[in-house]
């Protein structure tokens, strides 16, 4: 299972199977430069592999207001 926290909304999503960041972005309907994909201290580029047990934060970069 891969856990994804969406910011700023705070919503949590879980995905049973995802291989790459690009797959995750496609599932969320997002482009790579609309969000930061964060795993621990790292920003992940589109091609990075994801692993079972990963906890990710997907943070929108567009400032509102």
């Amino acid at each position, binding site marked *: 299972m891969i856990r994804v926290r969406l910011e700023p909304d705070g919503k949590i999503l879980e995905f049973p199977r995802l291989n790459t960041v690009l797959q995750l972005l496609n599932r969320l309907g997002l482009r790579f430069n609309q969000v930061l994909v964060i795993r621990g201290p790292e920003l992940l*580029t589109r091609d990075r592999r994801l692993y079972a047990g990963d906890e990710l934060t997907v943070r929108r970069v567009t*400032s509102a207001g």
Partner: protein
Amino acid sequence: MKCKSCREPAMVDLPSHNAAFCGPCFLRYFSGQVRAAVKAQAMFGPGERILAALSGGKDSLALANELLEQDCRVSGLFVDLAIPGSSDRARAAVEDFCRARGLDLVVVDLAAEGLAIPEVKRRVRRPVCSVCGKIKRHFFNRAAARGGFEVLATGHNLDDEAARLLANTLRWDGAYLSDQGPLLPAEDGFVRKAKPLYRLTEYETACYCFLKGIEVHDAPCPYSRGATFTSYKRLLDDLEHNSPGSKFAFYDGFLNRGRPAFEAQQAGLGQGLSPCPECGSPTSGDICGVCRIRRLLRGED
């Protein structure tokens, strides 16, 4: 993906520059873009005093952090809009940021000025954001002028600037097109204004804040109807997606080849400005727009 400079695993993907960077190399690239902006537009020189308008969001905090690290003489400015549940949190983010870096902070309290934004929203019939923007710009300029700063710097990024340009272009708004840009020279009581992040996208400022560990305030203003220029930003993002680099080329091409034509066309059309009799700010009318709102809120109009 590997870092273009050092071949370590990349953290930031920049197709517009045909590059990807690891954290440290990205931060070097970011500093280089800010230096290039300051130099290309002659925004400020060594020793000049800069007042950076801080909202607590990622762009303005990235700007202030970078100027500090480049040893600029920078102070922060926060305009407290007195919006419940929003302004106090933004203010805390700005105060924490400044305290941690020993950055001087000037605070303007709109409630004390008789211009709390919720009150303005109640009393003024125009959309609150246009009035709020006007009030903020007024106090940015006034704080910079009164504090003896040579330049006011804001965190506008390439996405903001390109979206505004597209909006102005779709309306063929000659007056705006003649002076939109990353540098507005000082004039008639207005201090010089600079946008040192105009070469960087909001994705890049977000990466910068993450990599620098900057805590940003990113809750939207409760009065916001979504980000400004959202639909224009989306159009430009589609363009950029299909043809990387086109967003910057659109904006930079305007600065070099479009704006001069609008400047020539608008030359001499500007209204003369004189100091507002109530607050001294430059205005083309009798009393300035902000003093007029203040009178309205006091019930004098």
